[in-house]
């Protein structure tokens, strides 16, 4: 690789050809402010807040969009640069409804941060917000879009287009009327939005935020007539700390449980428990499908089977590949399995009337809010999950409750629907569902553990965009001898743009997988739209490392060995894919328009 020599703020540096000035400065620990830039996305060069001066050149250069060239002399902190940045920030503030004290993003807004750093002062430009008509789209149960706070950086549009290949958002009109819009400016719930919330995670201001249910949850907790059950998803515990001032990669499961108890939840339970349950149901569904296809040659059964625990993915396939809905596992997501069991099995066991129960979940996800509101999610006879919070909302509530999070003692989940295996934990990372399913299915079929050291199926792990792994089945138990010699072909994709790549391959007959895991968000749930901001590649990696650490530390590593799961089948469900399971744990899907 060719090196390029240049000088930044009088420091000589040599970087690889093609490096941007922004990254070259980063190597020297010089911070250049950015707004439209996000490392997950393509370069835009729109906001112009990252401008730097090239000695001898009149115009300033956008550091994010300018590649280095030999002999450049760059000033990142000249008077001209500071004035220009201040002007840009000031202009952005003039078109932004800076109602900071009332904003959900107060304290976590990049524009607010920059305004404070650059001291834009009182002498403002003319307020443009009051001159325009803005609408706030709060109709979606997942996402609120408030154009009056938008600074048109287009991060959300690039996220929706490039990272997620959805195209629900677009830039519309031009000049003073230019805005971030949807098709014909329809509300988000009417268009092909998957509610994944990746746009929310990347919005630098409060223009895109989750629909928050904090007050509703506090109200439920304070209601003496209600029994409030809370479940927390696998990926929350490895990221919550970030939103409460801790560095990324901390596992805060015990503190989180303690905080939830202090907040006043009556039962503090674990989605990981139903993650294990999902594995049992979905794993058995896969084996049954294999049998139907390979032995019974049943034309109505479809392979490859794809996972169904990511509600963003489910809505995506409903819109984009409705022909493949029969390929989607009928197993509900862990959140919804939990909800259905909470108001049936758990309620009965604890002697609570289900109508007196409020079922709350904490998710790394905004699409889960939508999922809980799907009309079919009433298997218990009630709304199975009443209120869904993101990791960020939980952090906010912990702050409101005045809990000194970092100094909390570790506590354990309640003993009922609170025990999980390591397999349940890794649901939070891309490849995790696949690994968990293989740990169980392989053992069901062969009676032996998966042939990977320490049960770590490393080929399905990691951040590669599309991963493929093949496991050859040998010496199967008699019941499964039709699988002898079969090479089980699996594929894992995360981020919907990668899901599209895989599905197009399937559609075009270019791939013959048996089982596909798809997570809507980059990195899986650990990179979910409801996770702490910022989320980027380095942080996703740290969260992933934490998840696999949590798995390794668990005494039980396989879903089917979870004693509470075994008990649940014995006492209540009787058998996987049985009558009760179908009633409570499986669902159906809706064909939706792509347009």
């Amino acid at each position, binding site marked *: 690789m060719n090196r390029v020599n240049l000088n930044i703020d009088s420091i000589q540096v040599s970087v690889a050809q093609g490096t941007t000035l922004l990254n070259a400065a980063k190597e020297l620990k010089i911070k250049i402010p950015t707004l439209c830039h996000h490392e997950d996305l393509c370069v835009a060069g729109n906001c112009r807040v990252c401008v730097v001066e090239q000695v001898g050149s009149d115009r300033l250069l956008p550091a994010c969009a300018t590649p280095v060239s030999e002999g450049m002399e760059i000033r990142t902190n000249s008077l001209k640069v500071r004035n220009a940045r201040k002007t840009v920030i000031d202009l952005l503030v003039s078109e932004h409804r800076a109602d900071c004290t009332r904003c959900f993003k107060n304290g976590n807004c990049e524009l607010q941060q920059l305004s404070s750093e650059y001291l834009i002062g009182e002498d403002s430009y003319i307020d443009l917000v009051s001159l325009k008509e803005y609408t706030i789209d709060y109709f979606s149960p997942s996402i609120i879009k408030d154009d009056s706070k938008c600074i048109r950086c287009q991060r959300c549009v690039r996220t929706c*287009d490039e990272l997620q290949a959805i*195209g629900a958002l*677009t830039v519309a009109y031009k000049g003073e009327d230019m805005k971030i*819009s949807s098709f*014909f400016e329809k509300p988000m719930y009417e268009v092909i939005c998957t509610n994944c919330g990746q746009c929310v995670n990347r919005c630098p201001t409060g223009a895109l935020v989750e629909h928050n249910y904090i007050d509703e949850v506090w109200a439920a907790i304070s209601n003496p007539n209600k029994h409030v059950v809370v479940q927390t998803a696998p990926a929350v515990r490895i990221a919550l700390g970030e939103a409460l001032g801790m560095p990324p990669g901390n596992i805060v499961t015990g503190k989180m449980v303690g905080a939830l108890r202090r907040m006043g939840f009556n039962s503090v339970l674990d989605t990981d428990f139903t993650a294990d349950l999902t594995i049992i149901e979905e794993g058995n569904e896969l084996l049954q499908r294999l049998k139907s296809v390979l032995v019974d040659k049943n034309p109505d059964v479809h392979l490859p089977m794809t996972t169904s625990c990511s509600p963003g993915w489910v809505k995506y396939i409903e819109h984009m590949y409705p022909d493949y809905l029969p390929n989607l596992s009928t197993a509900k997501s862990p959140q919804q399995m939990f909800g259905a069991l909470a108001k049936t099995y758990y309620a009965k066991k604890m002697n609570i009337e289900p109508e007196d129960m409020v079922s709350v979940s904490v998710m790394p996800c905004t699409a889960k809010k939508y999922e809980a509101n799907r009309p079919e999610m009433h298997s218990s006879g009630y709304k199975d999950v009443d209120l869904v919070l993101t990791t960020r909302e939980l952090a906010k509530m912990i702050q409101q409750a005045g809990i000194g999070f970092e100094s909390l003692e570790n506590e354990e989940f309640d003993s009922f629907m609170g025990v999980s295996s390591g397999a349940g934990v890794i649901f939070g990372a891309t490849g995790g569902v696949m690994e968990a399913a293989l740990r169980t299915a392989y053992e069901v079929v062969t009676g032996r553990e998966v042939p990977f050291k320490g049960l770590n199926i490393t080929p399905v792990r990691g951040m590669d965009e599309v991963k493929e792994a093949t496991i050859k089945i040998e010496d199967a138990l008699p019941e499964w001898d039709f699988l002898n010699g079969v090479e089980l072909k699996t594929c894992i994709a995360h981020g919907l743009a990668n899901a599209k790549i895989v599905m197009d391959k399937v559609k075009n007959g270019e791939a013959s997988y048996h089982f596909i895991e798809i997570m809507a968000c980059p990195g899986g749930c650990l990179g979910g739209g409801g996770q702490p901001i910022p989320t980027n590649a380095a942080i996703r990696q740290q969260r992933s490392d934490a998840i696999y650490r949590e798995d390794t530390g668990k005494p039980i590593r396989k879903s089917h060995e979870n004693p509470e799961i075994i008990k649940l089948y014995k006492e209540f469900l009787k058998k996987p894919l049985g009558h009760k399971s179908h009633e409570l744990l499986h669902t159906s899907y809706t064909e939706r328009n792509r347009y």
Partner: protein
Amino acid sequence: MTETVNLVKSLADKYGRYHESLLPILQGVVQEEKYLSEEAMVEVARELDISAARVFGTASFYSFLNTKPMGEYVIRVCKTITCMMHGKNIIIQELEKNLKIRVGETSHDGKFTLLETNCLGQCHKGPAMLINDTPYTDLTLEKIRDIIQSLKKGDLVGSISNPLN
């Protein structure tokens, strides 16, 4: 299939189903239907295998790709500097009076839409306007009255060499 669906299909056949065909196809729809309806945009998106939002975002960028219904005759009066200096305001007033609509509106019979537009490149012959694709220059009140009258009568829109000019 509706007319719009057929129209979009035939345009896609003509220009090919490429990204590069988006503008020509949208222009073709506007040519026939005067504006881009929701249905038309959805069909274009389907034909080119792109998101409907992208079609809308692109169309709304261009001032000739109307996303709202337009009259049979779309009148665009140049409002840029030299046309302004040479009296575009009184031209507009005259048009409003004759058409009984204001700038931005379409007449009840769906015949006329009156708009202002940026520089038409007829600055030496201002005030100028376009009616659909045809420029009319060196406008006077009398000319306006004649043009509108002949359009109301249903005469064809003249070309630039129209004696009205």
